[in-house]
């Protein structure tokens, strides 16, 4: 009785997966069939949903494989993979030359993500020009009235210097301009979202994948910051998400990276709100 039940559950799961994702997916996962081993992943927080979903599917396919996914941020990802503590270190930015030189890291991009200015959903401002965004973050525009909003002081929110999100926003949107020193600093995309959702006069910036009904993203020079516009090249503030390994990836780690970069990994990436690179 028990052995029947034991055999039944994987069978049902396999059937369900096969029905849900079709034959292409089965072919992708076949690379892992019968294999065993362990993959440890850490680093960039934007990567986590994609990594977790991929890990779940792979571990369901082959029970001998264990995959752990941790966060910590891009800098932590570089350190951990460089010191050999994890197999894959994720970054939301390209590696610096110093990092590549010190650890001999290889980078594999799998997704493109946009970064957009975000405000409280009740903020009446529907569009901002890039120049206005620059002036707001530099502290030159300090009242919402100047950009068509209500008469209230603007509350600035920014991210810490370790943030890949901050890096791309600062380089492309602000053209490396100054961010007012009095701006509040929050430590993650999630913290930014909850700060903006709670402050009617706040403005900050988040990964496009994080935009939902709790915050509003005004159009930038008339272009809505959506992944479609980012894909078509209309929305300019973009970055890539990378997986990094120490030296050439081998065995299971190489399989994992080609799975993420393959068609099924691309489907997972897209369903999490990012644009697959392939």
């Amino acid at each position, binding site marked *: 009785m028990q052995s029947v039940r034991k055999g039944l559950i994987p069978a049902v799961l396999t059937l369900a997966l096969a029905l849900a994702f079709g034959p292409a997916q089965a072919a992708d996962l076949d690379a892992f069939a019968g294999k065993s081993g362990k993959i440890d992943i850490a680093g960039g927080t934007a990567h986590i949903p994609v990594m977790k979903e991929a890990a779940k599917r792979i571990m369901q396919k082959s029970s001998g494989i264990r995959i752990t996914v941790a966060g910590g941020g891009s800098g932590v990802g570089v350190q951990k993979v460089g010191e050999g503590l994890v197999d894959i270190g994720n970054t939301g930015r390209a590696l610096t030359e110093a990092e590549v030189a010190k650890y001999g890291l290889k980078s594999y991009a799998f997704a493109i993500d946009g970064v957009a200015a975000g405000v409280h959903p009740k903020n009446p401002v529907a569009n901002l020009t890039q120049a206005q965004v620059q002036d707001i973050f530099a502290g030159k525009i300090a009242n919402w009235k100047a950009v068509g909003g209500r008469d209230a*002081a603007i509350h600035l929110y920014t991210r810490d210097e*370790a943030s890949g999100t901050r890096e791309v926003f600062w380089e492309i949107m602000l053209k490396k301009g100054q961010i007012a020193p009095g701006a509040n*600093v929050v430590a993650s995309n999630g913290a930014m979202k*909850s700060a903006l959702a709670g402050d009617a006069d706040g403005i900050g910036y988040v990964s496009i994948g994080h935009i939902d009904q709790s915050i509003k993203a005004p159009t930038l020079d008339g272009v809505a910051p959506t992944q479609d516009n980012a894909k078509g090249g209309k929305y300019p503030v973009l970055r890539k998400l990378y997986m990094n390994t120490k030296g050439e990836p081998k065995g299971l780690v190489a399989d994992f990276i080609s799975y993420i970069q393959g068609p099924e990994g691309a489907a997972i990436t897209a369903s999490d709100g990012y644009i697959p690179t392939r």
Partner: protein
Amino acid sequence: MPGARQSSGSGNSGAGRGGVHGERPVTALLFGAAAASVLCVAAIFGFLAWFSLPLLSEGQLGAVLSWHWRPTSGEFGILPMAVGSLLLASSAMLLAYPLGLGLCCFVHGLGPVQPSVDLGRPLMGLVRLMTSVPTVVYGLASVFLLVPLIRGGFSGSGFSWLAAALTLAVLVLPTIVLVIDSQLRQTGPELRLTAAALGLTRAQELLHLTLPLSARGLKAAAVLGFGRAVGDTLVPLMLAGNAAQVPHTPLDPLRTLTAHIALVVATDSQSAAYNSLFACGLILFLVTLAVNLGLRRIRAAQPSGGSHV
């Protein structure tokens, strides 16, 4: 301390030979534990000093000891954070210390005296419960309750020196109360008979005898509370706004050294910004050390609390 050593010495001689035999490994074990702790502290200090060394040797000390934190233009000043730490910790203490002292006085004589309305026990129970509340819970509650209140009632985004100071005051209150309370518990009973013989009321006894003779504990509470306040990371990180600047009003955001380390530790580990963190760590370590040495001085100044009564 000398008294304690003496009494343990006399215990040894009375225990006989068997006792000495059995004690040797235990003593060695305890000595090992003590040595390991001391070595750990020394190692941490050495580690911080070693990693701060590049800053000193490469002439970056000026860059670290400046008022501007702009890593993108090569400025790594941590002075605003040092000032932020001191401002936040002192203001939190200024709020919490009188509150803690008042609470202890209330419990130890200024409150209702009749046993039927003994509020001391539930109050102290509550304070002890407060020690077990995780910092992050205070932080989270304040983000959703205190910050909007400050944002609505005053100006600014609400993430401010004020929000962090109020929350931090709640956080350090139990430390202050428990240290003062244990001192009063120790000093009080020795004086009770004398005070009663002099016809003093409980309130007079507390104000004129117990409190003055508990000066050591009162100071220790201040020093320990300050150490706790200056060392906390999560409350300033979640509530103070973390702008790397010296605040002009309590409604401005500030950044503490602890929050600064937490924010910058995830950056590129080869950057100068990352290296400047070791200087932050060194400053924090030295502040903690100074606080502890201060505590020892207080203890040394008054070797025994109430013996001259």
